[in-house]
């Protein structure tokens, strides 16, 4: 990629812009408030704030939360469903679950309300044979009724359409004649797998966000063009790849949860350049923390993600797990006299006490401020005293601890919970955290990173140059990407290997074709194959990377057995393997960017001494006089030993006594955590 590439990412609070000019060697940044509901305002404001002339930009890659917010807040387009007779309630019944293991309360709102779910006579059996022919008249009548009811989008979802889509296709054709726009989704088109609830929800979400995303992208593209932008607009998808704006709405559901995916893609690229392929990403915000596991330079992609209770979206997405703990998690002493942190959060409103917005209960952020880990000057005068008092009353008093010791306890317990969550994520993916480096970003990530690493016995922490704009960086470095899944579900020893080779060839060809159609230059296309396998009789799957199209049956068996043994320490020689899915990712790799540009060389000082902006007391089990550095001023190749605090525009990093820090050529800080 030559010229000026802009990544612009919309987050919950801020819209971040990063413009990299690889030829000119310059970088521009902007952070402006996100505008809702139309995020385009913030996007345009970011370009203005950065003083960027849109006419001079060669590519804009955009991460938007339009669809994510629509789903999580149920602000969806009015959408109707036509489904198999007897099954209109599938979307409301779900899989008979409850939100929490304990507690008999909770509620669930289906994506499409019951009066907009209509049934028509038709039926396939599990083998795809027609049992009841499609009643086309009933389809016409249902379409007319849904239009009359004011529906803007339509879902056609029939039982066993994955086995034989003929009825869905016939109904689709009828609907297209009558429907005034293109917002029609047939269930089998997005996901050709059995499980009617999951497939139906995926289709319903797609249709319900499609009009919103289409309108948003069209308006943004128009406004960018008005301001002189003449190139293609690309939009991030949840699989960590991007697609052109004029196509993204067709499979709009794929853009849900694209924000966290961008951050992971930035981590993949940063790690690749730093020579670290195994990373646990850790993005800590105010109310929640996102964790993902990158293995050998690959982002984890799953087809089975539930974005919230009873909301499964089964399209390929970067597997980011959200932990309900962040800077706003509230600390309290329970009825038994035991210290607790979370799960309740002060959120951003009122937020922690130290925000001065009326919060009264102590949080993790307050503990950080009290212990000198956050710069006191960034918070209002008298705030420190207010926090100390609250800490003494709410935690210190009941536990018989001084305020500092109480704050330390809050941090330790908060870290224990987050470490536990990270461990669960890594274990569930079969990885030992000790083989990984912690990639910490987000506003609060670098503040806790080294403590978490110590807790998890992770030897090394990678702090990117600009932790606060990592998602925008993800947009800048993202590749074009298309994922394919084909379900075979057969014992490996009876699978037709010619069929396997044929499927893989077909998947690759389709991906190459799609990438060829984009206007973006890609110097290299790579293709990755994997198989989801299990022992015959099991229900869980284990994903196994495949070497390539020529893979043999014996190789697949051996790869699976090795992966299984590595995960469970069990060998089961008497049981055969099942080949469930063949997966293929076709990735159009863009030319690498020089991430060293992220911190301006001209701003760097000659010595560590010159980069020091001050000193303050920081609590490391006791008060320690600690130097404070301004990160942009650190000399190239700087190295130091903790204790230290390193500050930058939107982020503070704490280095404990004995930790060793080295800055690499890209401006990343690599921390070797003291034992």
């Amino acid at each position, binding site marked *: 990629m030559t010229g000026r590439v802009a990544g612009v990412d919309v987050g919950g609070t801020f819209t971040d812009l990063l413009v990299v000019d690889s030829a000119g060697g310059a970088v521009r940044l902007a952070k402006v408030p996100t505008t809702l509901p139309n995020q385009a305002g913030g996007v345009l404001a970011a370009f203005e704030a950065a003083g960027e002339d849109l006419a001079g930009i060669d590519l804009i890659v955009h991460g938007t939360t339009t669809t994510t917010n629509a789903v999580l807040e149920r602000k969806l387009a009015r959408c109707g469903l036509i489904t198999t007779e*007897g*099954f*209109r*309630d*599938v979307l*409301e*019944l779900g*899989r*008979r*679950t*409850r939100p929490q*293991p*304990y*507690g*008999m*309360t*909770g*509620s*669930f709102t289906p994506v499409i*309300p*019951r*009066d907009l779910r209509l049934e028509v006579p038709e*039926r396939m*059996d*599990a083998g795809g044979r027609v*049992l009841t022919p499609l009643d086309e008249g009933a389809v016409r009548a249902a379409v007319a009724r849904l239009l009359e009811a004011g529906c803007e989008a339509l879902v056609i979802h029939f*039982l*066993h359409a*994955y086995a034989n889509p003929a009825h869905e296709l016939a109904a689709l054709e009828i609907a297209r004649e009558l429907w005034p726009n293109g917002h029609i989704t047939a269930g089998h088109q997005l996901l050709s797998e*059995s*499980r*009617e*609830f999951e497939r139906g929800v995926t289709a319903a979400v797609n249709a319900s966000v499609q009009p919103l995303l289409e309108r948003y992208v069209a308006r943004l593209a128009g406004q960018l063009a008005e301001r002189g932008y003449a190139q293609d607009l690309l939009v991030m998808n949840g699989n960590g790849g991007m697609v052109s704006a004029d196509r993204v709405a067709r499979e709009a559901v794929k853009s849900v949860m694209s924000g966290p995916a961008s951050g992971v893609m930035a981590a993949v690229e940063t790690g690749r350049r730093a020579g670290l392929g195994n990373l646990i990403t850790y993005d800590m915000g105010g109310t929640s923390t996102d964790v993902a596991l990158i293995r050998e330079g690959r982002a984890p992609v799953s087809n089975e993600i539930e974005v919230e209770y009873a909301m499964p979206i089964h399209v390929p997405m970067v597997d980011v797990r959200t932990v309900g703990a962040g800077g706003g998690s509230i600390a309290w002493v*329970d*009825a*038994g006299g*035991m*210290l*607790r942190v979370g799960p309740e959060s002060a959120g951003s409103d009122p937020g922690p006490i130290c925000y001065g917005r009326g919060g009264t209960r102590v949080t993790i952020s307050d503990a950080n401020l009290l212990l000198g880990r956050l710069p006191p000057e960034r918070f209002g005068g008298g705030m420190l005293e207010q926090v100390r008092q609250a800490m003494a009353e709410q935690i210190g008093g009941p*536990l018989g601890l001084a305020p500092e010791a109480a704050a330390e*306890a809050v941090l330790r*317990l908060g870290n*224990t*919970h987050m470490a*536990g969550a990270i*461990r*669960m994520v890594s274990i*569930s993916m079969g990885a030992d955290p000790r083989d990984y480096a912690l990639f910490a970003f987000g506003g609060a990530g670098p503040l806790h990173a080294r403590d978490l690493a110590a807790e998890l016995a992770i030897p090394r922490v990678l702090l990117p140059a600009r932790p606060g704009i990592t998602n925008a960086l993800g947009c800048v470095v993202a590749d074009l990407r298309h994922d394919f899944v084909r379900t075979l579900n057969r014992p490996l020893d009876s699978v037709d290997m010619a069929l396997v080779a044929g499927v893989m060839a077909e998947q690759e060809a389709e991906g190459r074709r799609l990438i060829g159609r984009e206007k973006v230059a890609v110097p290299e296309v790579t293709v990755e194959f994997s198989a989801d396998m299990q*022992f015959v*009789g*099991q*229900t*869980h799957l284990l994903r196994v990377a495949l070497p390539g199209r020529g893979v043999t049956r014996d190789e697949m068996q051996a790869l699976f057995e090795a992966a299984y043994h590595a*995960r*469970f*320490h*069990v060998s*089961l020689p*008497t*049981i055969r393997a099942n080949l469930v899915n063949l997966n293929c990712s076709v990735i159009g790799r863009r030319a690498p960017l020089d991430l060293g540009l992220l911190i301006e060389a001209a701003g760097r000082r000659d010595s560590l001494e010159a980069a020091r902006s001050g000193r303050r007391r920081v609590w490391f089990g006791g008060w320690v006089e600690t130097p404070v550095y301004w990160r942009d001023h650190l000399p190239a190749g700087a190295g130091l030993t903790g204790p230290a605090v390193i500050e930058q525009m939107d982020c503070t990093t704490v280095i404990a006594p004995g930790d060793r820090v080295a800055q690499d050529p890209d401006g990343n800080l690599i921390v070797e955590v003291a034992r």
Partner: protein
Amino acid sequence: MSLDPVTLAVIQAGLQQVCDEMDLTFSRAAFSPVIAEADDRSDGIYGAEDGALIAQGARGLPVFVGTMQFSTRHIIERIARGETGAPEPGDIYIVNDPYLGGTHLMDVRFATPFWRDGKIFCWLSNTGHWPDTGGAVPGGFSASAISAEQEGLRLPPVKLFKKGVLDPEIYQIIASNIRVAEQRIGDVQAQASALLVGAERLRVLLDRYGDATVAEAIAEMRALAARQMRAAVALIGPGPWVSEAVVDSDGVVDAPLVIRLQLRREGEALVFDFAGSSAPCAGPMNSVRATTLSSVYLAMRHVFPDVPLSAGAFEPLRVVGIEGTFLDAQYPRPVSGCAAEVSQRIAEAVFAALVQALPDRVTAAPAGTSGNFGLGGHDPERGRDYVMYQISGGGYGGSAQGDGLSNGCSTIGISKAPPVEIMEQNFPVLYRRYALHEGSGGAGAQRGGFGLDYEVELLRGTARASFVMDHGRVGPQGALGGAAGGVNRVEVIRADGSVTVPEHLSKAQDIPMAPGDRVRVRTPGGGGYGDPAQRDPAAVAEDVRLGRYSEARARALFPGWTGDPD
């Protein structure tokens, strides 16, 4: 207390994570869908001397909340008496005897001592629901067994693994007595693997904090949990609070079994007095002591989910008056219904008593049945025998927080029901309907959730249908003036259109089925909460508009609702 509160909290979280990782390992490695998909298993850490619960996985099946501490204690006592072989490192005991701290025979417990410096520091144990343990009926859920022997193979504690190696002789005895034995070796390895992973994690924790510190923390955790439960109990008035819950029948004698509960606070303790409940029954709807206690504990945990899972949490809870009732069955009373059904009626009685004392915290009764429909037969197209299970959810009770959830999981479970498409792939059946059980939500200011209404047809071959469900006689009870939810209804619809209802309404065994015959099941709705006349008329109108209630039924259920749009 010499231990600082932070170290204590950190060790508590660490022990919890050991258990959570055991749970995860067990499910991911298991073969049987009932474990792998339905998470019908649990893992925990138990005291060296008395088997007391130290920590248990957060996503274990709720009904096992209190059981493994009893079975572990039985093992310890039997070892002390010389009835069971003394442990050596690497040994894993297996036991499924219901009368030794269990549930039903299908819930098989593994237990292994965890050693430090040549001494047992604690026990690790887990329970997994095996798909079959022999007996008269595939899967073990007989609706009409009259003795334990008919229910399957009963194992006292024996060493299945000796010094880390599976004993092939014992394994062969087991494998020769259960159905579909070929794949069980995978589940056995998964169950053992979870304990090994747990031991590895626990070792790391002990190395880091020191054995003495962790031991001190465990004692302190127990005291703290007890204190927390006492604080919860203090929220409850002195009482007494009285409730009843009814099991339709035992499957053999068509008469209701009544659970009578008087709940009262005595000092810092909460007493659950079940005196006056029905006598032990002939059929399999008996409960064993461990399951009865566990049912009380899990109900309390639903109400107070913040109290940690620890033996301490149970200390202030005293269960009395069960001797001589069907809640404390002795060998050889059949017990296969205890975990899935009786346990949920016990929980219902606890909810119904507690909602009087804590109206803002407790819901009206949930559907409270596992809704087990079994179909066993021969598929001529595939040339093989099959056993199919359809479990289903029902409505939850209304509460101060709002209306009840529809099609929620059983009170004692956390598992998902299988998709219709998967059922039709695997078995020669066709679902004609999978829908909301209209009209079933119990009326109340906050109404109950709705049950499920499904109809399934046998396509080919012959088969036999069995049902182990409940709430066919009376619906899940309402609270504070709310009405009961709709009852569970089972119908067998023959190809000629004739309809029969099982004699015991919700329980039947071996009903012959021919191609074209159908089974229709409507599961219970949740109980309503508060006076139905107080329900927001707009909310009633919305339910009518969405067809959840017919207009006529809404008028009948919600007095004063006129149906007028304003």
